[in-house]
């Protein structure tokens, strides 16, 4: 599938890229009214928070929306050592001169892009407070080091994603940050939609196989309370489908894509394998 993102391979490109006319939209299958909500939020330029488990389609949804709204998408994957200069920008030396280099957030603010802070809880809370002034009525970014501030471009929009789960109990967002967002809840899609996703994502997969994979995945998710940190994601199902499509035996494919990555617990792995075998042995 051709997307805006993979047009040029192996070539350095600027992070701010408008989707081109000839591109096909990234595939996304709506589960509910999330598209309408996002469009409404965009119309009013309100910041949006995407909540949901890993691999349920948050990032894909945003790629899709950015394309539909014809806005460039600037993605920042947050991590523990992310500082505010990594977002806003810093001075660099060039010869005897110093040059200011905008960070991704500043670039997005200036260009009117959608800035996506992925897994924002991973970043330290003090580095994320810079977004506060962008997320309320001010829509301003203060560049402290330069002593300047920027009024955001009228098309600029901020989106963050966040995965509530017990492994991040201590890394929750500050309430003051949280309440500045429109929050859209994501979960693993319903059965029929998940099947559609598999068929669309993996060209040439038999509908029957997609049916079995989705059924197995849904059963596997029921084991979440038995010690799985992350449930079997839609992404894992897509991977499994890809492995099968590449010629691997279905049970083996599910094992490497859906079981081995998510647990080291032998009993759990056995239970998961039991589920897979039941669905594919017939």
């Amino acid at each position: 599938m051709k997307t805006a993102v993979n047009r040029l391979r192996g070539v350095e490109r600027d992070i701010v890229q408008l989707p081109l006319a000839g591109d096909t939209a990234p595939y996304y299958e709506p589960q509910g009214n999330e598209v309408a909500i996002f469009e409404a939020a965009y119309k009013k330029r309100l910041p949006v928070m995407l909540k949901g488990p890993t691999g349920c389609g948050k990032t894909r949804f945003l790629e899709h929306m950015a394309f539909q709204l014809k806005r460039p998408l600037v993605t920042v994957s947050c991590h523990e050592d992310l500082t505010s200069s990594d977002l806003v920008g810093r001075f660099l030396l060039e010869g005897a001169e110093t040059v200011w280099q905008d960070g991704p957030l500043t670039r997005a603010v200036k260009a009117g892009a959608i800035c996506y802070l992925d897994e924002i809880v991973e970043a330290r809370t003090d580095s994320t407070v810079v977004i506060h002034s962008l997320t309320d009525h001010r829509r301003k970014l203060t560049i402290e080091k330069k002593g300047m501030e920027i009024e955001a471009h009228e098309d600029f929009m901020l989106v963050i994603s966040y995965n509530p789960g017990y492994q991040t109990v201590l890394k929750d967002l500050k309430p003051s940050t949280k309440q500045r967002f429109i929050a859209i809840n994501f979960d693993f899609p319903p059965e029929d939609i998940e099947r559609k996703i598999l068929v669309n994502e993996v060209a040439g997969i038999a509908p029957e196989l997609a049916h079995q994979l989705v059924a197995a995945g849904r059963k596997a998710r029921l084991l979440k309370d038995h010690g799985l940190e992350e449930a079997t994601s839609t992404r894992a199902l897509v991977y499994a489908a890809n492995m099968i499509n590449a010629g691997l035996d279905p049970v083996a494919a599910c094992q490497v894509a859906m079981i081995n990555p998510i647990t080291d617990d032998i009993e759990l792995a056995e239970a998961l394998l039991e589920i897979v075998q039941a669905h594919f042995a017939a």
Partner: protein
Amino acid sequence: MEDASRQTEIQGLLHELKDASSVAYREVEQVLPAIRTHGEDTALGWLLACRRLFDFDREAGKAFIRGSREAEQVSETVLPWTGQALEFLRWRGSWRALEGFMVNLPRAYGSLGHAGERRWAEIGLAWCARQLESGNAYFAIPVVDLSGRQGIAGIEQLATPAEELFESRKLLLSTYLAGAIRVRNLLGAQAILPWALRGADIMQAGRARGEAYFRLESEESLALLLEHLPGFRLSDRNRLLGMLLDVWYGEHFDLKESTWSPEKGRPFVETDGRSLFFPAVMPTRDEAVLAVLHGAGHMRFGTFDRLAMKEMFGAASVDFPDSGPVSWVPLFMRYGDDALRFQLIFDLCEDLRVDFRVQHSVPNYLPRLLASARAATPRPPEAAAYFDLALASVEEAMVAMRAHAPRGRQFGPLLDPGATVADAYRVAAAIYSNDELPRVTDLEAFHAAYLPGRGPNATRLAHPQQRQDQQQTQAGAEQQHEPDEQGEEQSETPQNAESGDQQDGGKRKELAGFGDTSGTSTQSGNRSDAQKQAGAAGEKGVPYPEWDYREQRYKRNWSWVQEKKLAESNMAETNRLENQYSNALKRLKKAIQAQKPARLAPLLRQMDGDDMDINAVVSYVAEKQAGRSPKPNIYRRRELRQREIAVTLLADMSTSIMQHLPEGGGRLVDRVRAGVLLFAECMEEVGDAYSIAGFCSKYRDNVSYYTIKDFEQPLSEDVRSQIGGMSGRLATRMGAAIRHATACFEAVDTRRRLLLILSDGRPEDYDDGGDRRYLHEDTRMAVKEAVARGVHPFCITVDTMANQYLPQIFGKGHYLVLDHINSLPNKLPEIYFRLRR
């Protein structure tokens, strides 16, 4: 000439015999012609032996003569076994052994051959020489049983350990033999020696106990057998089975280990409509999984549905009790001696009905059942008829499932989604009346008739279940009856305060009312007690509000928390635990050390330090050149970061932690102690601030909060021994404890505060009046308050039913259910590190 004298001698012997016993004479006369075919010499030898044995012991002589005819027929010799028989003359009172010898002789020749027979007799005679009783026992046992169909090698398998044990431990063959044969049949030859050695030890400790052991009747003996029984061990794998049930049926089933032992024949999973009872071991994993799914299928798909059962009993014109457990027996009694036959047919129909429904929940279930059945060993003929019919019925169901083909007349009605157990009964009655299936009398054949995973359905009293829509009307009546039913019935009192409570004298009475508003008079006795206690502590404690959901408001100063020091301490227990878990601790510490570099990550952008922070330097120079005056924080330093996190481990110390673990191996409190201890040791390694506390309660004004270790306190011997002394008492007023723990955090200055609550059941107290929701709601509010004050509560529970209430109390993702209690000690530190990440 010589012939003539032999003849005279023979005649003489015969005369003597005739004088001695006319019965014996007649028997000899019958056998003699056959013996004579081997020649006169042989006949003479044989007659001499008869005479000598008869003189020695009349019984011995008779036994010899009686057994001779068949022995001659099978062996086609006479003198070898005659010689062996004469050996018995060496022991007084050996006629019983000789009798056994003669009875078994033909079979020995038949199954072991001449050489084998010689060895068989040799071993037996040697035992007669050691101890006659053992010889008796040896020869009394049929040769096939002794050899286990493995020829003489099978006999040697038994005899060799027996000889060793006799030499070393004076263990007699007569004590050992019968049990040893069964052990070999169940577990194989290699299991005999360890089994017998253990038995010899027990024998030395006490004769009666030892004998019971060797008869395989004692607990120890059975436990040892179960432990060594080959196959899939359901008792060790019940977590896996629980998970599978959860996955396929989406609900929790009560799994219990049954009292099955190898002696009882084929192992089956059974159900009474409320619980699933699994045997310790089943032959294969497939069979075990099928059996558990099938058993749960019975519960799930209406075998115990009250209305359907009633209809079925009605069809059989048998009374159906309105409440209480129901016996299946009257249903089959009508068929008298043929009850087993009908039971097999009924089970076959009902199992088919259930399995067809199971297939809709569990993909591939029927094909798996079929594959497993086809791979099964051949059955005895009378069982095979049922087995094959069951197989055919499953095949029919498969066809019906795949093609929506027209259903067979016989089993078709059972495949209807609306079919009930009553339909199964009707179909069974129809098949029964056709009278084509053979009678079954033998229990082994009866057992063998079931497909893998299936089993007799009527082994336990049935507990009929109400369907949801029936429940409303009958719920009241049911409630009243249930506690009377059986001792095993759990009462509806707070489960955390179930047993071993040192001061629960008036417990039941207190439950009648709620809080202070009622039941005051009955409580007064206990109350004064409590007050005395509080008085001794010098204060009434710290008051906290409590949330009343019914009035939607806080009750001020409602629950009173007294902070105490745990009086009990047990260093011996601590040392034992330290030893027991030393490997686990080592592993955990290693894991922590491996993570340490991350904790000692360089502090960047420091004002001083031992290294340059290159990024900081660049931006410093850059900003300087840009005309700004940046701070010179351009160093990096490796050092402990300022403490980021403080954690309190709050353990539920209610009575319920004193319960014995269902899987054996001690009590829950042992795991709790071990978990807390490992947690403490790991925290020392990590260096995070932590405290340990426990809580329990009795009424709102008596919530005890035991501070075992404060944030500031080092992990001293004193603290360690207090952990070893942790025990359960009273109930669980969790909200008050959470509020107090939250208050204790005030003194600690860290960025993150974590409250880990270790629990084993729902919040409950004596004065909650049976209204579970009250303390649930209060705990939920306490959690909210804690969050508002910057404390993150996280609950770890071993209550497998916790999914029903913890999500409401702690919120999704803020609790963890450990479905494997034994993993608690290791998991507790691991969970903390995962949370801390």
